[in-house]
């Protein structure tokens, strides 16, 4: 059995088990979190070139699988992002269960990870876009959840993979015709342009960012944060793979120039709308967009192929995102989904730790000191200031606007209580938020803790 098949079977089994036990949310969530965490741990421990045992079966680590004449293989390059996604899944499943998020989230998580595993293990221009579309459909189902709500987020999630799909297929056909480059240079150039358009669509730049903000408003906070995060990891790995496989892309567009500007526009857009937000879910959606842009800024500024700093960023981000989402989920339980600021009477009084978790988490996502993301944000801003002064100025403006947006939310949450029957937050939420705050602070004070892991991931990531 190959590593890919073993991992897929384990994920499908986990999803099935979590689905069967969904009426016992705590058990279902605990099993999913433990299973995903165990898979991440096993994947981390596996060597790259030998055989190993996995669930008492011999696994041939270099073996590939073939479907319709196409090869799928979980290469070392794919292993790093899959490992990260498994870690995200385990952490989100655990915190979401403790925060009593909707029960469809847990069983869908391993399924989505399985689809993304197939996406990252297939040929980049033919099967990968297909599996990305499958993943997008599962993302839509997760965004929709198991309750009647507007399908805006779910529908917009489908947009990027379906729009990009024909461009990749066209490029794949042209690149497979070896004589085209000499016979028809115009067609050859068009294929490169199609590839760049496809990549551009997958990056979800403004104005294709709508699915991220819609997730903030029309999905559960955990679903929104998880989907944006795993999408970003998968797309980062995919685009980097494309840059490795087709290095001539850089003749047509310089990622080192394009990526920071795409990121700056996303962050600026998010900052403006965070400042103007009137609802908590709206603010959350634009905060996710700001975070999404900041990660691409870090990538763009560290070179087109990235560095271990990106892995460090992806390892730490879920800690802060789960902290913010746990606070927001608790507020949503009391005030309804996406409440307006003027209805949040008594939030800080009756839900002090939830409000603190959301606000502090929001500030930490922006790079506030003592937050887990502080070192990487500071490093990114320094590099921006050193290498691209105009980018730095725009980023500072985006940061200032986003900060003002969070301050406006604080004012909303601090409104005096009107309904004295408003219940206090559950103790388990308070403990969850407290532990996440402590873990984030520990990493902020010792950023070197995760550096060896990030370095190992980069080593795998550079093995072709």
């Amino acid at each position, binding site marked *: 059995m190959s590593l890919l098949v073993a991992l897929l079977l384990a994920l499908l089994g986990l999803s099935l088990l979590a689905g069967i036990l969904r009426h016992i949310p705590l058990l279902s969530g605990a099993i999913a979190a433990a299973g995903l965490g165990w898979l991440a741990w096993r994947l981390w421990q596996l060597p790259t070139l030998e055989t190993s045992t996995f669930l008492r079966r011999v696994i041939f680590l270099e073996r590939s699988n073939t479907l319709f*004449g196409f090869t799928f293989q979980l290469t070392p390059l794919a292993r790093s992002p899959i490992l990260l996604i498994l870690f995200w899944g385990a952490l989100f499943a655990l915190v979401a269960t403790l925060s009593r998020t909707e029960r469809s989230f847990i069983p869908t998580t391993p399924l989505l990870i399985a689809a993304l595993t197939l996406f990252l293990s297939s040929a980049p221009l033919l099967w990968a876009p297909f599996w990305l579309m499958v993943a997008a459909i599962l993302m839509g189902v997760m965004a929709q959840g198991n309750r009647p709500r507007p*399908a805006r987020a779910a529908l917009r999630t489908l947009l990027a993979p379906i729009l990009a799909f024909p461009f990749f*297929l*066209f490029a794949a056909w042209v690149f497979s015709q070896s004589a085209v480059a000499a016979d028809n240079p115009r067609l050859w150039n068009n294929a490169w342009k199609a590839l760049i358009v496809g990549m551009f669509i997958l990056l979800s730049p403004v104005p294709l960012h709508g699915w991220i903000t819609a997730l903030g408003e029309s999905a559960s906070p955990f679903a929104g944060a998880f989907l944006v995060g795993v999408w970003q990891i998968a797309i980062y790995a995919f685009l980097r793979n494309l840059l490795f496989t087709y290095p001539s892309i850089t003749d047509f567009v310089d990622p080192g120039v394009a990526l920071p500007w795409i990121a700056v526009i996303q962050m600026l857009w998010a900052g403006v709308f965070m400042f103007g937000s009137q609802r908590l879910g709206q603010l959350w959606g634009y905060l996710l967009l700001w975070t999404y842009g900041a990660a691409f800024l870090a990538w763009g500024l560290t070179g087109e192929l990235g560095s271990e700093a990106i892995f460090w960023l992806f390892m730490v981000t879920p800690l802060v995102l789960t902290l913010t989402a746990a606070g927001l989920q608790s507020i949503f339980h009391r005030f309804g989904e996406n409440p307006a600021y003027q209805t949040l009477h008594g939030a800080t009084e009756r839900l002090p730790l939830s409000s603190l978790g959301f606000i502090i988490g929001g500030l930490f996502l922006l790079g506030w000191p003592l937050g887990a993301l502080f070192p990487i944000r500071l490093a990114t801003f320094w590099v921006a200031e050193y290498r691209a002064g105009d980018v730095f100025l725009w980023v500072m403006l985006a940061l200032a606007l986003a900060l003002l947006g969070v301050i406006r939310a604080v004012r909303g949450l601090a409104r005096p209580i009107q309904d004295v029957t408003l219940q206090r937050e559950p103790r388990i939420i308070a403990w969850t938020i407290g532990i996440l705050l402590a873990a984030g602070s520990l990493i902020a004070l010792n950023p070197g803790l995760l550096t060896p892991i990030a370095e190992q991931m980069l080593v795998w990531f550079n093995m072709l």
Partner: protein
Amino acid sequence: MPTLDQFLSFTQRLNNPALILPSILFVAAMLIFSDWRWALAAFAGTKVLAGILLLQLMPPEWALQQWVTGGLMAIMWFMAARRVDIVRRKQTNVPWWKPEWRYNPSTWMRLAFVLLLLVSVYITRPYLPVPKLPADLARYATFLALAGLVAMGFGDRPLRWGFGLSLWLLAASFALHALQVTVDTVGLMAGMELLLGFAISYFIIVDGARSWPHPEEA
């Protein structure tokens, strides 16, 4: 009853570029109608004619998979939309036969946008120069892609997005099958359309359930 071979040779005789015009009208009707039954009927018509037009690019047994996938998608969407409608009518005591057509401003807006699209396409005749794709089919595919994008601009309703994304994939089918007709690409496109069909039918139900006065009773 004709054999399969007779049926396939009959469909090949139907293949005529003149079918592009009725197909465009079906697409326009699909985008304008607010009643889901009429819109779905127009969608089915578009898929039938697109399947026949694809005969110019591939063998009939593969071209007509548009009928199969389109038919399956239309059935899924019909059942989902009907379920939403039946429960809502039952809970609000509206008889099943009573029409509920509404000529609201959004219908007029859709009509205006579709007319603008048709006039723009007629005047500018845009088309993507895909190799090996005949010029009339290239123009038709470009129109389908533009109509798909316009459909997605008409609001976040699952059925409209389903139409829009399906038109985009249909346009891509023309462009890709002109380049390559293999079992992989034909299967890939059909698989994508069916997956889209499943997803949209689920979204029709969960989005439509918001209009039920008592969703917990359904």
